[in-house]
């Protein structure tokens, strides 16, 4: 074994000796012109290759690289599709104003801020130049007003993901306007947009954004059943809906969601204290119906049904109703490490167990019963 190792090391060393000799005598006697056909100026590097190299460095370095020479500037302007400026803690607005007109091929732009910096003029510049944008993150941009949403609506119609969580100044009219233009939206985060996320806006989203799959309405206190039902009817492909803190929501919303959104995989109802057993039974029933219908069609899938359900602080629920949901959705887990049924604050639901936890429980208790 030791001999083998030393042999390999020898081979390695030989290989490197050979490598070092290549330049000195690799082509001896052939009169080869070493420089022929080689890129002597590295500005001639193919765009794809430069972009591959720059994809391995951070966004700051990419911006610096665009200042190197005209060749690199053009390559980056033409080839850069993703940029994040979240690292920028002071001058994000100036940076966006400066970069947007240059990086016009951007498809993903992350402008998340810890302290608000972005202003409307920067977002307007983005909308004027970056027409290929598909993913835009403006979260925690407290300084932005409706002007920004109107600009995005007109300039970035191919948006599929928009995160405006924490942008508390936006109005529902502006959001409705955006929905009417950005009809390809699949992911929309409105967490904390209390003014923007009203029933009017949700009706517009339900009407125009029929491809919507993910919607976060966390702590949007003005949202009521009217808005959620409009969503359920208009967006049948909805997979994730977070209604945490939407205190006006009642069973009606959940019933419509259960019946109209067969692909719903995650539902957040934290602090929705008006939710009762009726909603839970409708969820359980709809999942059973879906599974039966799936098996009839020959496309039954065990993974169908809810995978995440947050009913924390929903104190009106009883164990039997929640257990019914748990039984109908095998992907919901109460067991440690796989917590996907979240019930904190519901002390009366401690008896609810998922399928696998129930099996484990039975496996422990059965031997005792035999004795």
């Amino acid at each position, binding site marked *: 074994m030791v001999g083998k190792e030393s042999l390999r090391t020898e081979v390695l060393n030989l290989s490197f000796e050979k490598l070092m000799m290549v330049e000195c005598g690799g082509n001896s006697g052939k009169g080869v012109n070493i420089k022929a056909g080689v*890129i002597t100026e590295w500005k001639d590097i193919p765009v794809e290759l430069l972009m591959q190299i720059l994809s391995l460095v951070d966004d700051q370095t990419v911006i*610096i690289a665009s200042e190197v*020479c005209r060749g690199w500037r053009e390559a980056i302007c033409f080839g850069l599709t993703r940029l994040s400026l979240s690292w920028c803690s002071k001058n994000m607005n100036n940076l966006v104003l400066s970069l947007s007109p240059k990086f016009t091929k951007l498809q993903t732009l992350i402008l998340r801020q810890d302290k608000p910096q972005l202003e409307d003029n920067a977002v307007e510049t983005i909308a004027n130049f970056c027409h290929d944008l598909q993913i835009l993150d403006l979260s925690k941009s407290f300084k932005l007003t409706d002007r920004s949403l109107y600009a995005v609506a007109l300039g970035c119609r191919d948006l599929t993901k928009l995160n405006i969580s924490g942008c508390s100044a936006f109005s529902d009219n502006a959001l409705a306007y955006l929905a009417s233009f950005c009809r390809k939206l699949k992911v929309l985060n409105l967490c904390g947009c209390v003014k923007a996320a009203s029933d009017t806006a949700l009706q517009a989203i339900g009407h125009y954004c029929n491809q919507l799959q993910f919607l976060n309405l966390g702590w949007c206190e003005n949202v009521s059943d009217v808005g959620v039902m409009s969503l359920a009817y208009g967006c049948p492909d909805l997979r994730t809906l977070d209604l945490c803190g939407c205190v006006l929501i009642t069973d009606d919303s959940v019933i419509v969601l259960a019946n109209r959104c067969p692909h719903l995989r995650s539902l957040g109802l934290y602090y929705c204290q008006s939710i009762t057993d009726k909603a839970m039974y409708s969820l359980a029933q709809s999942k059973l119906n879906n599974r039966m219908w799936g098996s009839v069609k020959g496309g039954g899938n065990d993974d169908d049904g809810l995978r995440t359900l947050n009913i924390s602080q929903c104190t009106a629920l009883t164990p039997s109703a929640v257990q019914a949901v748990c039984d109908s959705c095998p992907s919901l887990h109460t067991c440690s490490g796989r917590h996907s049924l979240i019930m904190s604050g519901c002390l009366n639901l401690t008896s609810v167990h998922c399928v696998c936890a129930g099996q484990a429980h039975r496996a422990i208790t059965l031997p005792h019963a035999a004795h």
Partner: protein
Amino acid sequence: MSEIDMAVIKPEMMKPYIWLETSDGSIQQVEQEIAMYCPLICQEIIQKGMGSSKSCAICLPQRVSPVTLSLILDYCRFHQVPGRSNKERKSYDEKFIRMDTKRLCELTSAADSLQLKPLVDLTSRALARIIEGKSPEEIREIFHLPDDLTEEEKLEPLKNTTDDPRIRLLNRLYAKKRKELRERERLKNVEVEEEHVDERSVDDLLSFINGNDGDPKEVKTSKNKKKNRRKKEQQQKNSSLKEASEVNKVEVNGQSIRHQSAEADRIAETSNSHTEDVFAHREFDDGDIDDGIDPALKEKIDREVEDFARRLNSDWPERMQELLSSGQERKMMLFTPNGNSFLRRNA
């Protein structure tokens, strides 16, 4: 030779070779097994049946020179052997990319043109490590790239919130005043020390006090002259400051601090020596100017500066207040050198 010996030698002797032609026209014979590790060569052999003889050698892309081809073949030769551990491969790769940047660039380019993805990834990572954390100038130097971007094309330097001409002007005035005061204090102390060793007699002092030596009127007129001259100088200074602040105001409101107008240049050139003095290219450290200043005098200066700030910045009350309150700690931000003569001189 026995049959067993033949069996051992035969595969080695019958090892198939292919012919490759590099960008400079030179033709090399390479083991097919190793060359096939490159997808482009593999494609040429399988699909077009090329490389079997010298006359129909596989023409390699323009970016593949004989030197880089040798390197690539060495890489393929090592990685093509099946029994090697990941640790060995990693160790080899680490040593393999230890070469000068120029050769690394050529290798990356050649590997890319031969569609040899593992080597492209390896060399790209190495180049990314070289680029990361460098300034544009350093990158240009490393890769021998031309500095062909115009000033307008280059990214505008980022402006700090305090990096405004008016604030800088105020900072400078504040610091200058403090420095003058300190100087005055020092001179006063020297005078006091000198007064202690006065050798004159009592009679001499009395006659000096009574003013017998000279005409008191004459003394008075000289004093008035001095007063008038000082007043004139102060007015001149104020007017030049106002002029400068007006220029700066235009620039700030126009949101074009870097690209100054011709008007600003003209004012800068025609401004008198006092303005030059006020805007002298100096970085004042406010911290060490405060030491040993009479609080009453300090208060007086603060009032004066506040008054100046009010005149200069009626539209910025909060920011000025913030600046004045933290005047001692804050170091002045220097303006970027890309601006034109006026701001460059003032920075």
